[in-house]
């Protein structure tokens, strides 16, 4: 029987080829994210920009008349932009305090047993599909808002009743939807505050509440800011949950107006739009994309600052 010599140098060549192929494949995989963002940016610009030259930048961005199917079509998206900004801002104003305080409860106050109930609840909220929030919005929040509307505008001759599908309902749905995002990230930030900060503050005679609001929250500032920015991104990009809740008529953003957001503007007309109308819908997408990119860059700056501090 012939004995095969085993050398540790034996398969050196094949090994190095395998090694190099493996590294090349992994590098390629890592580049996928880069390529994807590049492709998305390019295609959003390619499909969104032509309408600017055909209709005019001023006529799209700064005109408030949206009449794409009129004989003299108008494509002003000013109200949609303002609705998205106002709606997101107010949703943040309602949602963030609740979310941050819930995070405070989870990391500072709640006993282990209670936290064990609250935390999974928050995680589940994050997983619920946005259409489900939309469905509940239509059937629970809208009727409530309609009653409020009837009460407030009982004597008004000019008010156009929305049946509850208005900006206010949409804001409430958005505020609920951003809760889990903001809670989870804020809680992580609060837990990352070193224990000796709390100990020092308490030893100096501060009460627990003083410690939380004067020591722990300021120390977790950049993490909470990150949470708020991510929440903003989530709120401004949400479409399906508010599509049927916001009323979907192009109006200036007031509480009891039926309104249209940037996102719902795209979804509600994409299925039948053609020609310039379709291109303008892509322009709306481009505007939304720009908002998101700005939010992302702000986020990146905050994260960098936070990393420098620690």
């Amino acid at each position: 029987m012939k004995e095969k010599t085993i050398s540790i140098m034996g398969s050196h060549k094949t090994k190095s080829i395998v090694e190099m192929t493996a590294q090349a494949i992994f590098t390629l995989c890592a580049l996928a994210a880069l390529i994807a963002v590049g492709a998305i940016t390019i295609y959003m610009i390619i499909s969104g920009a032509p309408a600017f030259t055909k209709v005019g930048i001023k006529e799209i961005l700064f005109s408030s008349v949206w009449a794409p199917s009129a004989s003299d079509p108008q494509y002003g998206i000013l109200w949609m932009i303002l609705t998205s900004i106002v709606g997101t801002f107010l949703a943040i104003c309602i949602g963030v305090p609740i979310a941050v305080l819930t995070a405070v409860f989870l990391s500072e106050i709640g006993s282990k047993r209670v936290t064990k109930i609250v935390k999974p609840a928050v995680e589940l909220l994050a997983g619920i599909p946005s259409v489900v929030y939309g469905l509940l919005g239509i059937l629970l929040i809208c009727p409530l808002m309609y009653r409020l509307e009837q009460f407030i505008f009982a004597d008004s001759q000019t008010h156009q009743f929305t049946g509850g599908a208005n900006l206010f309902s949409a804001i409430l749905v958005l505020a609920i939807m951003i809760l889990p995002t903001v809670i989870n990230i804020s809680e992580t930030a609060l837990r990352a505050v070193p224990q000796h900060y709390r100990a020092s503050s308490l030893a100096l005679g501060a009460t627990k509440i003083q410690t939380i609001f004067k020591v722990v929250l300021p120390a977790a500032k950049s993490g909470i800011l990150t949470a708020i920015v991510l929440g903003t991104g989530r709120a401004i990009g949400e479409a399906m949950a508010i599509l049927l809740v916001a009323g979907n008529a192009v109006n200036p953003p007031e509480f009891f107006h039926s309104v249209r957001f940037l996102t719902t503007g795209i979804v509600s007309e994409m299925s039948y739009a053609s020609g310039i109308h379709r291109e303008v819908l892509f322009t709306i997408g481009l505007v939304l994309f720009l908002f998101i990119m700005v939010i992302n860059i702000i986020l990146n700056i905050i994260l960098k600052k936070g990393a420098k501090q620690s």
Partner: protein
Amino acid sequence: MNQFATRTGDGVLSKEPPYQFVSGNSIYQKKVRMGDNVLLGVIYFCAAVSVCLLAGIMGYVIYRGLPAVTWEFLSTVPSALKGTFGILANIFNTIYIIVLTLLIVTPIGIGSAIYLTEYAKGGKLVRMIEFTTETLSGIPSIIYGLFGMVFFGVVCGLGFSILTGALTLAIMILPIITRTTQEALKTVPESYRTGALGMGATKWYMIRTIILPSAMPGIVTGVILGIGRIVGESAALLFTAGSVNMLPKLAGTGIFEHALKSGGTLTIQMYLSMTKADYASAFGIALVLLAVVLGINLLTKYITKKLDTNH
């Protein structure tokens, strides 16, 4: 100013010696701060809001959805001929899209994470990759929908099809898979690596036989989180995979050809039912979706727990 006077609240300077002021200023007795109690109450209230929201949502969906979920609802397709309405085709499409998306994205996501943790040595490229991964997770699904429709649908010529939808979703959940895998790889002790390399293993051999198996539970968690995102997705699929609810012909290559046909998932069907004001079936689907989400949550919990006890 003498602070005892301000504490008594009567506005005049107190002439009495401090030791009589046991109630306000002793270190032996806690001063009750009203503001503290109010804030504490607000914090409890906020935590209660989050729990009540979930309980309310679950309760309401179960209450309205349970009557709609029958065996017929789950096991038939809509048919004008038989007069049935069921979501079997949507369930099938959802599973089909999940499998297809994961087949595309899991290798890429894991590969990307391996590059970032095992091969990359910092520098501009890595920072760019990390920034773009971050960006991808921030882009709203409606933008993915538009991009998927233009790029995969029109430029690549796939049209309205399940494959278009799966490719779009693959980009969308790439950051989830990459991030969780990266975290999992980071938890593998450095001694495993030095040990394997010290015994003469090559890098790829070490990754294949030591690193990946140790990081497996974390990777599985990432995949499950990705499934959760796919199940709940609607805006990105509306313009890419469409809304047809028909079962494929199971004979021959029908099951593969199905990828090139339009197919609506559960969330899409739910949205369509909503717009038609068919709330009964919408709630039925919502209940099915909630059950899936709950299952996914429990599964990730279970795996994470197992991971913790292993280490």
